């Protein structure tokens, strides 16, 4: 049993020419290879693109962090400056002054210092110093505090007091302590300690314009729709371009996700987005949100260019494979057209040998074949011609009119002499002779029929020539059932009588023998007549020699018949002038079953 069912070959893919087959296979192969490599490189490239954009965003976020940190560091440096300033220390210290007037120059100097800082730094909106003793200095020469703003309840103040000297950062808020000024700021505040560092004496405040952070964040390009926001460690939003919407509950941000993670992640919620988180190290987390389809926008272009490239390559591949297959199949086509001509019967064509490869060899072989066929055809035609003539002759021999005339003449002559018994014998023999020859219209006959035939013939001749002719017919019983071409012996017997014995003085004897020997059927026709002169004997068997007896069949004809039927010569004639002639015919044994008419 077969393990697998045998698949029928796909019928759609039946090609009318080897060229289209080659074209198809090469194209298919190339297309497959191209598709695989294109897909592979596309995947690699798109991965690279995605990876690149991720990396790019990560780099960008680092940059954002650096920028923000720079500003915050500056604020801290400013606070450090205030911290170490002797005027500030002295001014804050509770015991320093007795009168208001004494305070003034200090106030002015500190205010000048703050002002200098503010002038050089456009990002700082205000610098303030609030002493626990109620003293207050800011960067403004004339400061009027908002009487309704309670400084002590403000976040930055409370945080600074709580932190005890460490700088603290407060989320963006509207500063309202300066009258008629409402600005969005980010505050850095720290408590200032007394000289011994034990007791807090006041709070120092630096306000950074929120627009600085807003600019940093909003200038980041993350596709068309990407944005940056900042949260603190508790998940409070420090900065978000759509903060109002978040507060109103119109939009939601993945605050929990962001606070719990520290690296980038992709959310599938709603639209696919890439969140990249950058921890600033002081509690703020800068988060960028990029829409994946915008990162992939680039990817689509790549995809398209790969498809176009692949299509072009396939078209080129088809073109090239067409050329290749044409080249390959061209000699085959030429050979084919030669064969077509041969098919139509033109045996004179020769295939041109264009190359020495397999197809060239094929063409050569084809040429050899054609010439061989041509030769065989000619041979066959010739053979047919000979056979036709021979058969005509054979027919003539069977009903040789002269023989018939002579025989009938003899019969008349005998009848006139009232030799009734001889007339009967001769007529009977003649009748048998004809019967035997017309009995079977076959090429091959059993030996005994030939024996009967030759016996009847000799009987007639004996009656004609009387004492001048004697004959013996001796056939081995074993040879009788073999087959032989018909009317093979008659020409020789005829020759023996007409040329050998008729010209001899006195009685002549014809001996016809047949036997088997060494797988051969051998006949011998022997006469003791005048014999054949050697020069004549020489030409006797060659076919171009004119038949000796124009009425009957020449020996050469018989020889040709044997050659045609057996493929080899089989007649051996030996003769001695005055001593008679001996013809030996040697034929390969043929039995009935081998002798089917061609």
């Amino acid at each position, binding site marked *: 049993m077969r393990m697998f069912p045998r698949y029928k070959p796909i019928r*759609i*893919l039946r090609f009318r020419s080897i060229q289209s087959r080659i074209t*198809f296979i090469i*194209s*298919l192969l190339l*297309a497959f290879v191209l598709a695989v490599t294109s897909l592979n490189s596309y995947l690699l490239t798109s991965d690279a693109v995605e990876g690149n954009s991720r990396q790019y965003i990560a780099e960008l976020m680092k940059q954002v962090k650096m920028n923000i940190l720079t500003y915050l560091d500056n604020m801290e440096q400013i606070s450090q400056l205030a911290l170490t300033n002797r005027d500030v220390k002295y001014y804050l210290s509770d015991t320093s002054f007795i009168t208001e007037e004494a305070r003034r120059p200090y106030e002015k100097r500190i205010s000048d210092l703050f002002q200098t800082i503010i002038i050089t730094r456009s990002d700082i909106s205000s610098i303030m110093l609030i002493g626990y003793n109620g003293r207050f200095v800011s960067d403004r020469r004339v400061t009027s505090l*908002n009487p*309704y*703003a309670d400084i002590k309840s403000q976040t930055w103040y409370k945080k600074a007091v709580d932190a005890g000297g460490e700088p603290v950062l407060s*989320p963006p*808020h*509207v500063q*309202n302590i300066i009258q*008629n000024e*409402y600005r*969005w700021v980010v505050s850095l505040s720290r408590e200032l300690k007394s000289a011994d560092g034990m007791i807090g004496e006041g709070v120092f405040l630096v306000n950074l314009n*929120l*627009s600085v952070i*807003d*600019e940093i964040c909003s200038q980041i390009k993350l596709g*068309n*729709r990407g*944005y940056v926001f900042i949260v603190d460690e508790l998940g*409070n939003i420090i900065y978000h*371009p*759509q*903060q*109002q*919407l978040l*507060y*109103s509950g*119109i939009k939601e941000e993945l605050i929990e996700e962001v606070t719990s993670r520290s690296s980038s992640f992709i959310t599938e919620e709603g639209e696919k987005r890439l969140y990249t988180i950058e921890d600033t190290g002081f509690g703020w987390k800068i988060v960028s949100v990029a829409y994946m389809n915008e990162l992939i926008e680039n990817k*689509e272009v790549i995809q*398209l260019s790969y*498809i*176009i490239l692949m*299509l072009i390559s*396939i*078209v080129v591949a*088809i073109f090239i494979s067409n050329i290749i297959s044409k080249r390959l199949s061209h000699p085959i086509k030429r050979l084919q057209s030669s064969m077509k001509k041969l098919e139509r019967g033109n045996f004179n064509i020769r295939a041109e040998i264009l190359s020495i490869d397999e197809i060239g060899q094929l063409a050569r072989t084809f040429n050899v074949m054609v010439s061989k066929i041509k030769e065989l055809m000619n041979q066959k035609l010739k053979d047919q011609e000979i056979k036709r003539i021979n058969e005509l002759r054979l027919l003539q021999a069977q009903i040789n009119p002269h023989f018939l005339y002579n025989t009938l003449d003899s019969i008349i002559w005998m009848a006139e002499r009232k030799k009734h018994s001889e007339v009967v014998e001769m007529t009977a023999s003649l009748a048998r002779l004809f019967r035997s020859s017309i009995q079977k219209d076959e090429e091959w006959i059993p030996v005994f029929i030939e024996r009967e035939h030759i016996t009847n013939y000799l009987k007639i001749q004996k009656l004609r020539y009387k004492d001048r002719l004697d004959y013996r017919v001796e056939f081995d019983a074993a040879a009788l059932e073999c087959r032989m071409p018909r009317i093979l012996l008659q020409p020789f017997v005829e020759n023996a009588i007409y040329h050998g014995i008729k010209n001899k003085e006195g009685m002549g004897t014809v001996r016809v023998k047949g036997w088997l020997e060494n797988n051969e059927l051998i006949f011998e026709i022997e006469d003791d007549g005048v014999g054949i002169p050697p020069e004549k004997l020489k030409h006797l068997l060659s076919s171009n020699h004119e038949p000796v007896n124009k009425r009957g069949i020449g020996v050469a004809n018989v020889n040709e018949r044997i050659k045609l039927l057996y493929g080899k010569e089989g007649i051996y004639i030996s003769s001695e002038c005055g001593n008679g002639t001996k013809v030996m015919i040697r034929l390969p044994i043929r039995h009935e079953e081998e002798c089917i008419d061609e």
Partner: protein
Amino acid sequence: MVLFLLLLGLSLILILRAIFTQEHRQEKIIAILKTNDIRKEFWQTVAQGIHSAEKEFDVIVDIRGPLSETDIEEQIELLREAIAEKPDAIMLAPVDVEALVPAAEEVKKAGIRLIVIDMALQAGKVDSLVMTDHVDAGRKAGAVLAQQLKPNSKIVMMSLMKNYQVALLREQGVREALEAEYPHIEIVGSYFNYSEEETYAKTKVIFSDHKDLSGIIVMDSIATVGVTEALKGIELVNKSVKLVGFEGSINEIKLLEEGLMAAVVVRKPFNLGYLGIKAAVDLIRNPHSNSTVMLEPVVITQNNMYEPENQKILFPFVIR
């Protein structure tokens, strides 16, 4: 043959892709605000909301508006210009709910989607509406005032003529709230004036007529100036008279800080702009997504004014 078909299919995909990528063009929306004056923080914040939505939905929004909040002619003109440009949608914050009706009809006739924000037009059909619920704002103002007053108190309402339509809606809200929850509070009167000065004068007159007045609802921030100036002049009453206003101007913020105003009812301009564009985008991308969005007003008092979400509303962060 098979190969040919394969090629044909591939090129078909290619063509379809090309068409598809071409189809992804940015929709254009023209927003005509009440004013495009950069000094009007309310409308600048609306513009911020618009920009935020513009970026989020990846559309192009062109913001226009007359210089003055009362310039009806100019707004109609702007609307006609916008129609001629054949955008995908027009978002309109009408200066006047009556006068803009015919022009708005033209928008619809031109086959352009029309989204009206801030105030509903008096007549005609619009595709989507995003507005502050002025009646609700009035209700909230009425309620917050009533809570701070003793029973049987008397109040008045002061408005400016230029804000007539909104003032009427707010007044309706105040009346609804008082009738439903605080029937014992009496509305002595409702006054419409033409300017700050007129309001100032009117307030003085009212106070001389009604010495027992304990609450004022001021429908307009400009009217607030006149009212507060008048109250400062009548020193004896300024602390006992409760003032509730709308809009939340800087002046009103200061008054809140000072405790001169009991509350201010404010709109959310950022959300107004954002939701207006969102409605427009929804309409363009899905023609049957008509909607009416009512934005809830927020009551701001001295206590909650510095809470983060209220800071965002009261102090628009506008980069100039």
